[in-house]
């Protein structure tokens, strides 16, 4: 079952109700353009006016290069990817590379690229593993949180072992540790402004070692799960 069940999804629906009070759901559905993943593939490969090709950093698969500087986006929901692009446009997220790109793309282009990468199931070759103690610490935070600090488990929202709860909540399993660390630090420093109610207060309570453990755990967890299944 697709679950439009989380907080951002509530915001999305409230937004519709506020903006179009006179419209019924059927009119909304008729008015909505269907995203063109094929056109998205062209932008991913060739870029657009003032926009470099997405695939140069994120690869055609959405797995990005192995540096960890660029997040994996393949298989994230189109809703989530579009929202992040909108947030780059509105400066809720700011990034020297992504903000100008998001501002240069039209809303339809963003929807098309999001559809392309969402449909791309993503490739998750195993990444570097961490030491057992760090993995265990990360797993504990992911599964039960930190009771002493009153921090809830990451998986409460991000799904079992960080598999994501689409469309609103991104997967973390298989995401680059460097990217996860960087983004949590951005929230902690007050520089990333989306999800202010949930992610910002959590990030502010996490110490650097906890952040590193969470990141290392999620980078490894998808690989280890697949490996376990393969055995």
């Amino acid at each position, binding site marked *: 079952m697709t*679950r*439009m*069940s*989380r*907080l951002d*999804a*509530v*915001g999305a*629906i*409230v937004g*519709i*109700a506020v903006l179009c*009070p006179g419209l*019924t*759901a*059927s009119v909304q*559905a008729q008015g909505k353009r269907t995203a063109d993943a094929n056109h998205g593939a062209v932008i991913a490969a060739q870029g657009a006016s003032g926009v470099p090709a997405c695939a140069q950093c994120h690869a055609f698969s959405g797995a990005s290069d192995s540096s960890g500087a660029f997040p994996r986006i393949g298989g994230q929901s189109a809703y989530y990817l579009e929202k992040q692009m909108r947030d780059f446009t509105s400066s809720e997220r700011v990034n020297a590379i992504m903000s100008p790109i998001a501002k240069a793309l039209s809303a339809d282009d963003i929807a098309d690229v999001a559809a392309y990468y969402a449909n791309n199931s993503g490739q998750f070759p195993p990444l570097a593993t961490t030491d057992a103690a760090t993995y265990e610490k990360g797993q504990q935070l992911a*599964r*039960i*949180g930190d*009771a002493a600090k*009153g*921090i*809830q*488990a990451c*998986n*409460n*929202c991000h799904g*079992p072992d960080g598999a994501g709860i689409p469309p609103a909540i991104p997967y973390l399993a298989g995401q680059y540790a460097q990217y996860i660390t960087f983004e949590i630090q951005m929230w902690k420093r007050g520089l990333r402004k989306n999800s202010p*109610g*949930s992610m910002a*207060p*959590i990030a502010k309570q996490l110490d650097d070692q906890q952040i590193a453990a969470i990141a290392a755990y999620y980078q490894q967890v998808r690989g280890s799960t697949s490996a376990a299944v393969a055995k």
Partner: protein
Amino acid sequence: MAERLRPVNVVTVGVGMTGAIMGKELAAAGLKVVGIERGPGRDTVPDFQSPAIHDELRFAIRKALMQDNVKETVTVRNSSDQTALPMRRWIGFLPGTGVGGALVHWNGQTYRFQPADFVYKTHLEQRYGKSFIDPELTVQDWGVTYGELEPHYDRFEYLCGTSGKAGNIKGQIQRGGNPFEGPRSREYPTPPMKEPYYGALFRKGAESLGYHPFPQPASTLSQPYTNPEGLTLQQCVFCGFCERFACEHFAKASPQTIVLPAALKNTNYELRTNCQVLRVNLDSTGKTATGVTYVDAAGREFEQPADIVLITAYAFNNVRLLLNSGIGKPYDPSTGEGAVGRNYAYQTVSASTVFYDADVNINPFMASGSSGTVIDDFSGDNFDHGPHKFIGGAYVGAIMTGGRPIEFHPTPPGTPAWGLGWKQAVARHYNHTVVLTVHGSSHPARHNYLDLDPTYKDAWGLPLLRMTFDFPDNDIRMSSYVTDKATEIGRAMGGKTVASAPRRRPYTTTAYQTTHNTGGAVMGNDPKTSVLNRYLQCWDVSNVFVVGASAFAHNASYNPTNTVGALTFWALDAIKNQYLKSPGPLVHT
């Protein structure tokens, strides 16, 4: 036989919301407090963790968090000429057990009662004349006023971090809030929860008819909040598993998230779990309690002497403990004499169900236990009852608490009860249906009461509580009137079909209605018609206080928790500021 333990200052019988708050506060005041809880100890970590806590079969159907009715239950009948039988499976209502009590698995709906509710008889007689109230009803004043309770409501809401929009601050009506509510001293501690789509549809429909929709006050929080105990709650994520479940997310106000950690830090406070209190012990005069007797999980019996006994269990268990301890005079419906067990009331709940076309997607699973939009236009005495032959009312609202797959199967009238036709209807309507709740007041009547069952006993050999109840005519008339109003709103919401289901007799325990059982040990000004004085102190045994919805003289149109919280702080203030300085009756008759 029972081992006598070292005396303490205070015992609380039960460590749910009221026991946890009172235990924490009195320990902080320097008293030695023991909290005795019949159920297990439990905490957010490790007991409430996902995904296990989202097991609908285990928690919602098999009632894993509820009182173990193999050991202890209630017997039920509709009238005195019937033989009551024990409830062997909880369906109609769900008494909690274990540390945190029912506040672990509540929905978080956090209403105040109306100012008129506390002076109910006086108010109704002034407005409608002395002969207006059906003589069958034993309506009476509570002995306390809304003005006296307001600071304590405020205190409880700020302990919980309740999310809402005030409608009346110090007499000034506030836009977006409930314009009918009694004056508040300040705004809610956190802003209202986001409005789900079903709430937005209800708002539109209700506004088109001239009503006054507002966001339901919720103790499932809209944003992170640190309460006066220094405990931080997190933002609710609308997972749809509040009622019957515990929150894994630190987002719902429960004793574990709002007060217990502060109590447990204090060396004056001791928590004993899996201990069943059998009775309150009295001295030879019968006017002073000497402590309680309980049995631990190993079956050993202990006597715990205490200066003050606070009975802080679920309403039913409060009344039963009084009866099994010989405190107060049991109510006799044939003579109307005696107060223990008198003025039992329930909640008169009904519904209108709004079925939409298949292109209107409601997403009922995207919810908290208290996300929703409601109107107060038909609650309590917010409208003129003169033309009607009833008192009381109901709030009406779109409150969807999770749309969980085993429990939520809306089908329009005429659908087969099973088989292919039923399955097709469930698939067709699951995501395209809004249920409107009509949450109505319940009035005490002479023939409705609680007493000890003459036949059935619990695992420790003590008589079970017997409940004799059916809905009074007054409340059936009220339900019919307000459910019609809900149905009109459902039509204004654009529903294709609106199915109206007003409350009908007989009362049955085989369909869930609500866990809001109230009364039986009510507060008041007259010892003939109340068990407790205005400070929730026993008239007959002045070192026993009975705290809970059992003290309600009637049940208003609203969920009781906030009023129980306010009464808890009200009684606490009386104990701290009056009783401790000069033990004895706080009110003289």
